[in-house]
């Protein structure tokens, strides 16, 4: 069993350990989860290192590759009659998503330190969900991918339905149903690929060697893209997100907005664009248009929200728009920006939701107008909130800037298959969001943390505890790290995107990355 399989196995084994521990040892359960996810962080570092020492030798080779080069591969036939394999491995995109997931779940466990209701089930489901997420990011067999995808989506129903707040049953049901509709689209797309290829395999690498007819691509690209778009909060399929996020408990919101929404962008890139490049060219401009709406609509929507979680959820809709916008720009900067934005938004929104949970735990309200002046009593939380907010408005020095400028430049540079005029106009419309985001972030933060203290009992509230400092500190430091040393993560991601670009350009133009 190689390191990548361990990556999936570790949270699963932790889940089993949690399940086997009696409920009355709930403290132990917390520690088991923490140790399990902590080991996950170490394992992730190891995987990253192993990937990097192998991959950096291949950069020149990748410049002309048209098929993703995978590392740390494990491939065994699982169910021969249907050609289903257990096929896992990593490339730069997977690695960056694995790092994101490990950080978020570790901090998520820390942020759930005080869950007292059914601790055991809570952590068990949380870890099961993470097993699914890791699985998705490393699977290169579509069947396996889909299985892990469903494993990641379904525990959400229980997590929100049982441990949530507010109209939780409605939110849980809505979220699950909408995501299932999305995955139905995805499934249809996968089956179509399977049949059309005639290869009798779900192996993505093999499926990608087939040149599907333009007509087929024209039909199935949008189907897969929209299917993943639902979980990536693509307008107008984003409405599960505000309700779902606001009803979910802290760690679940963190994981959901931080990691699960990334499955959408990841799938759209990894499968839709990768397998169906002609479809991507045909539909790129359409989806750029749709995601421009996402970006602005989400940010305008956030201005008027009264609840901190709704506020963050709309902001997520806007930021996830950047991910799909970058994907639809179909050039190197756009795709890289999309991956960077997935990472950046994941950490940032994880931090947001962790902080909201901590503030809510103290004030027992999430209504923005009921708070005020909290910076005085909780300087640590306020500082972290500001770091997240500034990352969200794209301040240089934090990760958001790196990602957003990539996406903007990608959109403006355009691609040969869409009207350049249109992509530029859309990009310039999308840049408006930097102002709107500044407006809602600063308004929201000023109302919560600044001004005079509105309620006398706020004076007695305490600042962050040690576990809270640890989890918010890690997330904030990650935002700074990516913002200040962006080349580290860019070096990790960029070579793996060359094959995508080469596929789009067609084999003839392979090696001509510089011109896009």
């Amino acid at each position: 069993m190689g390191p990548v399989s361990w990556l999936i196995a570790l949270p699963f084994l932790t889940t089993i350990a949690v399940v086997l521990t009696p409920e009355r040892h709930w403290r132990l359960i917390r520690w088991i989860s923490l140790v399990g996810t902590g080991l996950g962080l170490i394992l992730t570092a190891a995987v990253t290192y192993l990937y990097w020492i192998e991959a950096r030798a291949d950069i020149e080779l990748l410049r002309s590759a048209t098929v993703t080069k995978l590392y740390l591969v494990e491939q065994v036939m699982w169910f021969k009659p249907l050609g289903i394999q257990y096929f896992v491995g990593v490339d730069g995109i997977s690695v960056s998503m694995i790092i994101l997931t490990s950080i978020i779940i570790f901090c998520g466990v820390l942020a759930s330190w005080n869950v007292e209701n059914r601790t055991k089930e809570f952590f068990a489901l949380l870890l099961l969900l993470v097993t699914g997420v890791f699985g998705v990011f490393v699977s290169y067999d579509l069947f396996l991918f889909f299985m892990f995808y469903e494993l990641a989506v379904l525990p959400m129903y229980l997590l929100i339905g049982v441990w949530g707040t507010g109209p939780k049953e409605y939110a849980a049901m809505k979220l699950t149903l909408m995501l299932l509709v999305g995955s139905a689209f995805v499934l249809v797309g996968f089956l179509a690929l399977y049949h059309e290829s005639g290869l009798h395999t779900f192996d993505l690498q093999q499926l990608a060697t087939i040149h599907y007819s333009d007509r087929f691509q024209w039909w199935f690209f949008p189907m897969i893209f929209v299917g993943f778009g639902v979980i990536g909060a693509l307008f107008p399929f984003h409405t599960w997100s505000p309700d779902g996020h606001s009803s979910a408990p802290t760690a679940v919101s963190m994981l959901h907005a931080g990691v699960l929404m990334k499955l959408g962008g990841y799938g759209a890139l990894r499968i839709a664009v990768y397998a169906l490049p002609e479809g991507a060219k045909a539909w790129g401009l359409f989806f750029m248009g749709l995601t421009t709406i996402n970006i602005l609509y989400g940010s305008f929507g956030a201005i008027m929200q009264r609840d901190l979680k709704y506020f963050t959820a709309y902001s997520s809709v806007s930021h996830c728009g950047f991910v799909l916008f970058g994907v639809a720009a179909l050039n190197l900067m756009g795709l890289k920006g999309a991956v960077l934005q997935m990472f950046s938004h994941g950490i940032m929104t994880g931090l947001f939701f962790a902080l909201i949970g901590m503030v809510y735990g103290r004030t027992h309200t999430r209504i923005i107008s009921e708070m005020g002046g909290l910076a005085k009593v909780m300087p640590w939380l306020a500082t972290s909130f500001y770091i997240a907010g500034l990352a969200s408005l794209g301040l240089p020095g934090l990760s958001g800037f790196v990602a957003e400028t990539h996406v903007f430049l990608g959109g403006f540079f355009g691609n040969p298959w869409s009207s350049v005029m249109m992509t530029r106009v859309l990009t310039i419309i999308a840049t408006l969001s930097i102002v709107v985001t500044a407006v809602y972030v600063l308004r929201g933060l000023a109302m919560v943390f600044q001004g005079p203290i509105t309620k006398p009992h706020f004076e007695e509230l305490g600042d962050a505890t040690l576990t809270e400092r640890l989890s918010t500190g890690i997330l904030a430091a990650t935002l700074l790290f990516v913002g200040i040393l962006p080349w580290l993560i860019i070096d990790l991601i960029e070579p793996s995107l060359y094959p995508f670009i080469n596929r789009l350009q067609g084999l003839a133009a392979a090696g001509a990355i510089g011109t896009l």
Partner: protein
Amino acid sequence: MDGASGWMMQHAWLIPALPLASFAIVGLLVSPVSKRAAGIVATLAIMASAACAYLLAWEYFTLYPPGGKHPILVPWSYEWLRYQPGLSVNVGVLVDPISVLLLIVVTTVSSLVHIYSNAYMHGDHGFGRYFTFLNLFTFSMLGLVVAPDIIQMYVCWELVGVSSFLLIGFYYMKPSAVSAAKKAFIVTRFADLGFLVGVILLSYFGFRLFPEWSAEVGAATNGLAGTQPVDFAYLNHPAFLARFSELHVAFLGTSMLTLAMILVYMGAAGKSAMFPLHIWLPDAMEGPTPVSALIHAATMVVAGVYLVARLFPAFAYSETAALVVMVVGAFTSLFAAIIGTTQDDIKRVLAFSTLSQLGYMMLALGVCTTEYAAGYTASMFHLFTHAFFKALLFLGAGAVIHAVHTNSIWEMGGLAKKMPITHITFLIATLAISGIWPFAGFFSKDEILVSALAGGHPLVFGVAFVVAGLTAFYMFRIYFVTFWGHGRGEGAAHAHEAPAVMWLPMALLAVLSSVTGFIPMGEFVSLGEHEAHHGINLAIAIPATAVALLGMGTAAFLYIGDGRRAKSAALAMGGAYHVIKQKFYIDELYLFITHRIIFHYIARPIAWFDRHMVDGGVNASGWVTRTSGRVLSFMQTGQVQTYGIWFTGGVAFVILILWCALL
């Protein structure tokens, strides 16, 4: 990349790096332990950085003596962000006369303000936080000054913006400070939208034209090896500009160059608070006064001027863009000077004065052409002198506010005797800004007036001339009201001189405001070697001094004594006075647009639309599913006959379709 250059040149990155290191150390380690130590460490870091900046200036001008040619060097750079092959951002240090000039201004004023703040902020709850932010600001500003490419400029541009935001809102419990900080950030952010789009345009066309350019410039330019399409060295290169200006924007009827420059100028206008983006600067006075001195008078607000100067060849290449710079600058200088004559808050008068002087610098840049670039020198000269006397005015105002605990000039008065040092230094600064010989402002203002007239813009010269008179008037207005007569408020009666830690920096700035005018700036900062330094042009200096004295005399006439004359003068002006005092109602207009229109007619409908229409669609589809399930369940009767009917009907339907298709 010049092997012959000195040690400091090779290590010029230390200048911004020292404040950055200090920011991290003070913020994370020192400030939580000891507030006092935080102030000291932060101050020492900036002073070390200042020492490096002086050393750098000395090395640079030893290597390239005054009066000669001054090349643009990039002694240190490092790839920071690679967008795609052929388009990378290098962080680095650019050394040329104007960056050296700005480094000296920023480190000097920042050191003095740091020293001053140790006393001014003494006992404040957020003492450590204050110095952390101040270090952050200084780092960002120095990074901006030495930026060798437009993206590093943009990065640091945003960082100075956020440090300004943090410091304006320093007293975060005070609602007015909070909203002023928000306003400053959002208004400049709006301007930065233009800058960002400009940067995107420049990166795109820079990248596209780069291969052609490098072919044209060829291997002859070894100094430009490793140049990226976003570097200033490239963006300012005549070969690039010539090609870029040939591209046209079809629907605007201008060249792409003009469009890009106007967009970039939008950012510059926001940061330098040009009309109509000026509204944030007067409100920014909510921040602690030393912050106003450093950020909102001497350094950050000149970033816009500096940006235009940095891209000067590009602006000069596009006449339209230069014209915009000139007109907006001239208008702002007049507009702000008029408002400045009516304000009651000492810091706001100074803020409007800053606006007006920034307008001066901008118009001086705008009147230049590639052939006649005296205004470039004049603008940088004025930037240099203005930094010292305006910082001094603010520090003086700070000392006064510290003593009397009010900002309103009408509650001050008679402070000349109680605060002699503050009085003398304030007077020196006032004379300097009014343009009285031999103080610094006289020389730099003279050069601006000369360049406007000689550049062939008599109207602009006229405006600048009138503004010179207005400046003397409003400055002496606050000077007389604050320091002469007798104490009017509670605080003024008990005022006493500031401590030495506060007045020493002021005294030093007073010396600088007195002597810096004699620096032959044309020898150091100029665009061409054929630049003839004028010396003093008496035909302009005499009328300019006369108009300043006239302004001064008018102020003396109206405001010495009980101020009855001033009241009747205001009454005589009627409604006009009121409109001016309300700052031409620009703020109200903005408020109307943002709250009434944007929030009301865009944001709220979107929020509603999302909850009721889009989400309604989702709920409706849920309802349709449930209902159709119920309807369909009626069909499942369990009776074979019913099924038979459906079956027959279905088959008939399919046959019908097939039949139609076959026909």
